[in-house]
């Protein structure tokens, strides 16, 4: 699929002589040396990204890693030193002022860390700001702003002033202001970082909910890893102006690109990241028809690596689990399903955190099914313990630092 935002070899160098800084980067000098020699600061270095339509793309890094600069390069609030940014195939870096203004008012909306509301305007007029700037008539823009306020649950506060609202509510106005212009892309710069943890979680949920109603492309800047994992479809990790890794949370946890990324993810509770489908065994499980005999079932299990088999119906839907040791209770010509254990399966998306409790209560491994009930795999006890142990090891390593 064609990415909605395509960033290629993008550089931003701040300082007295950016071109000289660029040359020194090409010579292979590092950020500190360049600053020492020329006084130029490398903001973003050789950034390449493909952001896909409809995803929440989180850019994560510590302060000073260039993430806020990067997001401002996307709508050219900051002029890039070199490279290209294409939004829907059009190069933003080459746009005229007029084209740029059009792009900003139609396709790209932005949400700010400090909310950046206008204190002299009511909530509804704040939400209508983008439309006002675009020259939409008063009645029409109020109507659309009102709809946006309803989307964020602030319908009743349209006539209030920003300073009468709490921080979380103010940021919902900021969100409504972005939604009111119905943009294809939302740029959110540390949008929830100034909020209390509880409110932050609530806002994340609201964002996810809004995404379910109407999928937009969201570029979300954050320094909060839990936030990134919670809302991000994909995460880009930045370090010293460079994007060091891009991937889904799982991909990054399983294969961190370098020590920096590894240390970043040390304290993460992977039981929230991993799901049943990530740790289940789907390849070595014998699947049996309901009418199979004990003798046949024994043979099938013996050829596999585990001690269990699964009984499915003709459509592939999960029915029950058969254990090798229970088969011994019957003669070989009886149907194996007589000793099968019927347990409630879990879905593929069940978080790892929910599985230990299930495993403790279940006499057999936990079967995993898809949305239609088709059998996908088994979460065996060894696999579960192994996954949890990795989490514990990570937490210990973090604690030891």
């Amino acid at each position, binding site marked *: 699929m064609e990415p909605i935002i395509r960033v290629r070899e993008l550089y931003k160098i701040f300082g007295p002589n950016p071109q000289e800084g660029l040359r020194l980067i090409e010579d292979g000098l590092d950020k500190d040396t360049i600053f020492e020699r020329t006084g130029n600061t490398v903001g973003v270095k050789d950034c390449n990204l493909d952001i896909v339509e409809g995803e929440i793309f989180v850019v994560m890094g510590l302060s000073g890693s260039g993430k806020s600069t990067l997001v*401002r390069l996307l*709508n050219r*609030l900051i002029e890039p030193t070199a490279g290209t940014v294409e939004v829907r195939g059009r190069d933003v870096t080459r746009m005229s*002022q007029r084209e740029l*203004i*059009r792009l*900003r*008012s*139609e396709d*790209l*909306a*932005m949400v*700010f*860390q*400090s909310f*950046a509301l*206008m*204190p*002299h*305007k009511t909530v509804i007029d704040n939400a209508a*700001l*983008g439309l*006002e*700037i*675009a020259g939409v008539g008063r009645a029409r823009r109020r109507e659309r702003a009102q709809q946006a306020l309803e989307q964020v649950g602030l319908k009743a506060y349209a006539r209030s*002033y920003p300073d009468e609202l709490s921080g979380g509510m103010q940021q919902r106005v900021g969100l409504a*202001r972005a939604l009111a*212009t119905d943009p294809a892309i939302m*740029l959110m710069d540390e949008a929830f970082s100034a909020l209390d943890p509880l409110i932050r979680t609530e806002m994340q949920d609201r964002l996810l909910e809004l995404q379910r109603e109407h999928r937009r492309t969201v570029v979300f800047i954050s320094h909060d890893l839990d936030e990134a994992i919670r809302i991000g479809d994909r995460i880009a990790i930045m370090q010293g102006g460079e994007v060091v890794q891009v991937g889904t949370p799982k991909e990054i946890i399983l294969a961190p690109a370098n020590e920096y990324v590894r240390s970043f993810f040390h304290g993460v509770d992977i039981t929230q990241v991993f799901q049943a489908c990530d740790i289940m065994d789907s390849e070595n499980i014998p699947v049996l028809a309901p009418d199979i005999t004990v003798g046949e079932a024994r043979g099938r299990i013996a050829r596999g690596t585990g001690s269990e088999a699964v009984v499915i119906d003709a459509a592939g839907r999960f029915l029950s689990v058969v254990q090798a040791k229970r088969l011994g209770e019957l003669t070989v010509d009886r149907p194996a399903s007589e000793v099968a254990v019927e347990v409630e399966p879990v879905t593929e998306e069940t978080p790892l955190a929910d599985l230990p409790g299930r495993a403790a209560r279940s006499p057999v491994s936990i079967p995993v099914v898809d949305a239609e009930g088709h059998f996908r795999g088994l979460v065996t006890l060894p696999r579960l313990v192994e996954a949890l142990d990795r989490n514990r090891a990570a937490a210990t390593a973090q604690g030891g630092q």
Partner: protein
Amino acid sequence: MEGRINIPVGDWIETAVDWILDNLEPGLDGIAWFLGLLTNSFEGALLAIPAWLLVLALVALSWWRVSWRFGLFAIVALGLILGMDLWEPTIKTLSLVLAATAVALAIGIPLGIAMARSDWVEASIRPVLDLMQTMPPFVYLIPAAIFFGLGTVPGAIATVVFCMPPVVRLTNLGIRQVNREQIEAGLAFGCNRRQLLTKIQLPLAMPSIMAGINQTIMLALSMVVIASMIGAGGLGNTVLTGIQRLDVGLGFEGGLGVVILAILLDRITQSVGQRRRASA
């Protein structure tokens, strides 16, 4: 010591003044005509209204914009001015203040905006403002009298020069102090340069600009009194007469009139800067 060094700054200024007088006369006449028209229109209009009606309007304004207590003060204070028979000089002073302020704002606010938009403009205007503010106000009277003779117009011009710096400075400061993210918000939603100024920067700088306007009005009032020395008339003239005759009573009455006008103007213009909605 052989011969003191004497840099003839005074001579240069005189030469410059002569040159202006010789070469820019039509321009000076135009300025004089305009300011005279403005001052006379204000004065004519304010004197055309019956005194009691104007008092009532001012009291109502004080009551509505400031507080009922201040409304009561306005009644007493304006009654005192009428009682001291200083109504006409007070109105003359007020007209001068209004005319000078109007011109000062018309020049000063755009100048402040230009300063906020360009560091270069700021760097070049700032020393001029410093000079305008630290120069003893009496000094302005001399060139004003030379260029425009004696009377109301030179008084108004000296007042414009003297009262302009605060509104220039505070407009510049107010715009420069607008939060970076608020500017970015404007730009990110597609503001062009003009929209950024009118929809974001000026509204957010408004409290600062209003403080500048208030200061400009107060400076105008203080200068108008001094300008009576070159015949600007009004309450300053009453004070001046008191000094010339060593008439303590008359001088004090004139002074009291200035104080009352100052308090009324200050409080009423301050209240305009505050947001009208209830804080509850």
